[in-house]
């Protein structure tokens, strides 16, 4: 029997492409592949079966004819009938077998495709849950709208997922909007109350000055105290809602004022005892935050200790800054309570969900500590209660503003002067601060190649600065120059907390630029440098300096104001060239109309014209 052996291969050959087509169709996407697979396998089965039937019928017919032809005349009919029947049976059998084989193959393929689809779907769902949803929620939390978040999210694998995602995004967005609105409303309200409290405190201060009657003063002080407490609550809410914190002080605040400002904001301020001989000050931008944090801690200490006990505050200057210790004689905090307080103060997370309505203090301290880099730690106190250590970092500690540096308002200068006099002990080093230390590099320091000219330039500026005794020596012109330059000389330049030079009120930018240009000579010159430069200056012709300086400053101011940092280099080269050629410049100066020698600075050119 050859035909059954022959017939399966074509059938298998017909079936395989069909299954293959189905499998490749299942590849790209589960959803779209499903119908394709079904039809592909179905037609494959049909054609395969038909092909098998055809081939087997043809073979059977051929075998039958051959048999009939080969048989004897007498047996031919029987052979034909037998062969025909056998052929028919064979065809039926082959067809049935082929169909069964093909159907089995089709079902296996469908099963495999179904499994693959299921796995694919599971993977898509995992991806959806683990990546898509968190990404969308994160985008919404960062303030995107629902549409933005959906657009940025990877495409959903199915319609159901897409709908889930849309609903989720809308809900989260709504929740986020409500949270933001509540926060901003709180912050806004807190800001208004802050402004009111600040204004009221100023009013009360005025009234306290106006009314000398002791009874009235007592009432005013009482109101003042209440206002300060209300202001602290508003500050706390502002800090928690992320609004700007309270007021900013324009000057460094001495430690005594910091401590008194802090204790003035709590109800039991009369129980607070300050033990501070520290003369440091806190930089103005951080003073309010430090004060507020200390006030909250003092309030805690006063609230959790018996009403008769005192709260002691100590200040200690250490290498890393200033440590303020607040000790109460109240309840001893247990291990757990200490740990919890420590956690509340140092918590990194930024949400308000852990807040209980009544205990805002430590959360506020934590926020402020993070903002200003304070470190707060709790420990049992020697007084029997709890001690809190607050370390103010070195960057925020500075010297109190000296009266020489000139407070802009004379009215405010009086208390500042007295306090400055007190706290500025004669022994304290004048330049011992970091925030107010002027940096020579801010003058757009000269390039390394100009190092040789540095002394000459220093000498030039130094001569302008130490011009007073030279005036007596070099005569009338020199005196006139010195006078003019002295009046034009800016007061000592101030540097802000950021280290950038500050323009004083009523002063032009050009004056600031000049001040910063002459700054290296002021800071970088030690006494012997002064002497050396004075000697150097003595060698030079005074008239040369005279012609150059006034016109030079006038023109140079403009240039500097326009061009920025470039002139400092130019200035250095110019003065460096000038030192050897001072005689030539002197001639040029005494006879302005005469043709000048080859060398001339842009300034003296301007002078000639």
């Amino acid at each position: 029997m050859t035909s059954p052996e022959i017939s399966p291969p074509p059938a298998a050959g017909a079936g395989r492409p069909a299954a293959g087509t189905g499998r490749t169709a299942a590849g790209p996407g589960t959803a779209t592949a499903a119908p394709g697979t079904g039809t592909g396998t179905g037609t494959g089965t049909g054609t395969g079966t038909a092909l098998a039937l055809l081939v087997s019928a043809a073979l059977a017919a051929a075998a039958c004819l051959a048999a009939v032809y080969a048989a004897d005349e007498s047996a031919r009919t029987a052979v034909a009938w037998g062969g025909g029947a056998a052929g028919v049976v064979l065809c039926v059998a082959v067809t049935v077998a082929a169909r069964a084989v093909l159907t089995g193959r089709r079902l296996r393929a469908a099963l495999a495709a179904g499994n693959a689809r299921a796995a694919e779907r599971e993977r898509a769902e995992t991806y959806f849950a683990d990546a898509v949803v968190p990404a969308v929620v994160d985008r919404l939390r960062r303030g995107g709208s629902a549409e933005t978040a959906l657009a940025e999210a990877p495409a959903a694998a199915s319609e159901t997922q897409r709908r889930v995602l849309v609903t989720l995004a809308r809900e989260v967005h709504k929740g986020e909007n409500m949270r933001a609105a509540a926060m901003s409303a709180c912050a806004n309200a807190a800001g208004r109350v802050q402004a009111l409290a600040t204004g009221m405190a100023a009013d009360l201060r005025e009234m306290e000055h106006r009314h000398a009657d002791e009874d009235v003063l007592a009432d005013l002080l009482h109101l003042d105290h209440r206002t300060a407490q209300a202001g602290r609550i508003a500050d706390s809410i502002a800090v928690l809602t992320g609004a700007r914190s309270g007021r900013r002080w324009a000057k460094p605040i001495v430690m005594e004022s910091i401590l008194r400002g802090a204790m003035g904001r709590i109800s039991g301020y009369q129980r607070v005892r300050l033990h501070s001989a520290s003369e440091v000050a806190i930089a103005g931008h951080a003073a309010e935050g430090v004060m507020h944090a200390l006030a909250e801690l003092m309030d805690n200490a006063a609230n959790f200790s018996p009403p008769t006990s005192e709260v002691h505050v100590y200040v200690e200057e250490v290498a890393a800054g200033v440590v303020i210790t607040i000790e109460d004689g109240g309840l001893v905090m247990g291990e757990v309570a200490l740990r919890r307080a420590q956690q509340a103060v140092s918590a990194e997370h930024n949400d308000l969900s852990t807040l209980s309505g009544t205990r805002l203090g430590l959360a506020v301290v934590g926020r402020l500590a993070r903002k200003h880099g304070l470190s707060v730690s709790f420990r049992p106190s020697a007084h029997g209660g709890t001690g809190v250590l607050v370390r103010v970092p070195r960057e925020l500690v500075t010297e109190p503003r000296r009266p020489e540096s000139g407070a802009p308002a004379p009215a405010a200068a009086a208390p500042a002067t007295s306090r400055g006099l007190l706290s500025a002990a004669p022994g304290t080093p004048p330049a011992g601060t970091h925030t107010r230390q002027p940096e020579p590099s801010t003058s757009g320091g000269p390039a390394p190649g100009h190092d040789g000219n540095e002394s000459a330039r220093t000498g030039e500026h130094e001569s302008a600065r130490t011009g007073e005794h030279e005036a007596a020596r070099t005569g009338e012109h020199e005196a006139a120059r010195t006078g003019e330059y002295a009046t034009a000389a800016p007061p000592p330049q101030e540097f802000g907390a950021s280290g950038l030079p500050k323009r004083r009120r009523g002063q032009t930018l050009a004056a600031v630029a000049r001040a910063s240009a002459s700054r290296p000579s002021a800071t970088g010159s030690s006494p012997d440098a002064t002497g050396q430069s004075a000697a150097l200056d003595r060698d030079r012709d005074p008239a040369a300096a005279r012609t150059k300086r006034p016109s030079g400053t006038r023109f140079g101011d403009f240039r500097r104001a326009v061009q920025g940092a470039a002139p400092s280099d130019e200035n250095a080269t110019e003065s460096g060239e000038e030192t050897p050629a001072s005689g030539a410049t002197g001639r040029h100066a005494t006879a302005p109309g005469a043709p000048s020698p080859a060398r001339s600075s842009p300034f003296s050119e301007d002078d000639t014209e």
Partner: protein
Amino acid sequence: MTRPGRDEDPDRLYTVTGGRSRSVAGADTFDLVTLVVSESAPVRGMQSEHAAILRICRFPTAVVELASDLGLPVSVVRILLGDLLAQGKITARHPRRAQTADALPDPDILKQVLVGLRNI
């Protein structure tokens, strides 16, 4: 427009006086023109206003001048001065004009003396 209280100090007056509104020395010890003289130098750890008063009052200074120098209300300065007076760190000198006016003899008596002298 200046912001209110921009240039003042953060410490409130009730913290300066420790919550008191009355001088321990009594209301009439210091009037506006009472001259105050410090008797000792300021010591470290003192309240800054006390130290400032002692510093300013090395030479006799009137209460009103002190108040102006410190930028504090007179009533607050009185309280601070009362503290210092109680500690013996300052002395108060009252202007003598009223007392000298009282101590002068009556003009009528003077006239009578004059008349008596002329009659001699």
